[in-house]
């Protein structure tokens, strides 16, 4: 039975850079029922796509972007997305997460997970405009730092409101602790996802979405959001952390 999705978008986008193939699949309901949030379902997807002894920078090694059911909603601290992959630094499972506006934008484009496998034969970047997914040439962007890449892609696409997650020279050269940067200053750096992106010859992922997502009970959700916010704000560390950071 195909029911409606609430919170989740219900779709996974698979991109294979070796064959330049893009396909969309329905999100399995048992996957999100059995594993919590984007990190949980991402870990399960990674497990299914890996084989014993897989080198982290192998062509077949997947890089999985994930946005959870709360991602991009009014819930506090919900702007985060996860990167799940096999770490080139530690050689084991890695889950790195990042704030900024990239995650919510990916969700608004209608995808819960973006799974990237394979290796392009020249530098490319991925352009996701809702249902339209293109793999574009990034030879002119190769070697640029993250700020220049971000600005270059937005200018090339003519989309000021697109969100870009990209790597700089460290990722291109597969430095084992290289970060994926979005919104110029937001980094997913834990365990080196930048190196995995660099090994796939993938310079950046740009996304723009205006599809939206449905809630089961918006009023009850707003009430819950208010309760959580109150709990956060009544914490003694709140004032300090919001003024001076963590």
């Amino acid at each position, binding site marked *: 039975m195909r029911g409606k999705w609430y919170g989740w978008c219900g779709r996974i986008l698979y991109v294979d850079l070796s064959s330049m193939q893009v396909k969309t699949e329905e999100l399995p309901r048992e996957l999100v029922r059995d594993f919590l949030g984007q990190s949980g379902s991402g870990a399960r997807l990674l497990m299914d796509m890996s084989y014993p002894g897989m080198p982290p920078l192998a062509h077949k090694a997947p890089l999985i972007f994930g946005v959870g059911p709360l991602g991009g909603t009014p819930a506090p601290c919900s702007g985060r997305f996860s990167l799940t992959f096999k770490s080139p630094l530690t050689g084991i499972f890695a889950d790195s997460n990042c704030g900024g506006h990239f995650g919510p934008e990916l969700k608004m484009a209608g995808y819960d997970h973006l799974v990237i496998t394979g290796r392009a034969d020249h530098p490319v970047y991925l352009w996701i405009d809702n249902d339209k997914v293109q793999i574009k040439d990034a030879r002119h962007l190769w070697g640029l730092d993250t700020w220049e890449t971000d600005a270059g892609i937005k200018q090339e696409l003519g989309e000021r409101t697109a969100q870009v997650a990209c790597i700089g020279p460290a990722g291109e050269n597969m430095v084992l602790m290289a970060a994926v940067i979005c919104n110029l200053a937001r980094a997913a750096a834990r365990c080196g996802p930048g190196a995995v992106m660099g090994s796939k010859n993938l310079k950046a992922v740009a996304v723009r979405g205006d599809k939206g997502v449905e809630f089961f009970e918006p009023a009850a959700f707003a009430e819950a*959001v*208010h309760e959580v916010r109150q709990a956060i704000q009544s914490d003694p560390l709140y004032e300090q952390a919001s003024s001076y950071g963590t």
Partner: protein
Amino acid sequence: MELVVKINIIPEKCRGCRSCETACALWDRPPFNPRRAGIHIIKDEEAGTEYPLLNLECQEIFCGKQAPGARSLLEPACVTACLFHALQVEKEEARDAG
């Protein structure tokens, strides 16, 4: 009778989190989509500046979107959502039409 609300924008206090956009969109008809919100944050990431931009309509008539936790009778959801007081209700009043 019209319910009028005047919202003050203090851009220096805005940190560009865009929670006002999500709060506004939540009370719109489904699906939830912040691009349809009555408020948008214009961001210049390189300069590190943000400017909240409100629909003119929001400054004329109270939208009726009131979230739990509103501090006054005519406080719209975007103002309630702002954690940094970049949006403030300056005045609210009931005015006779015409």
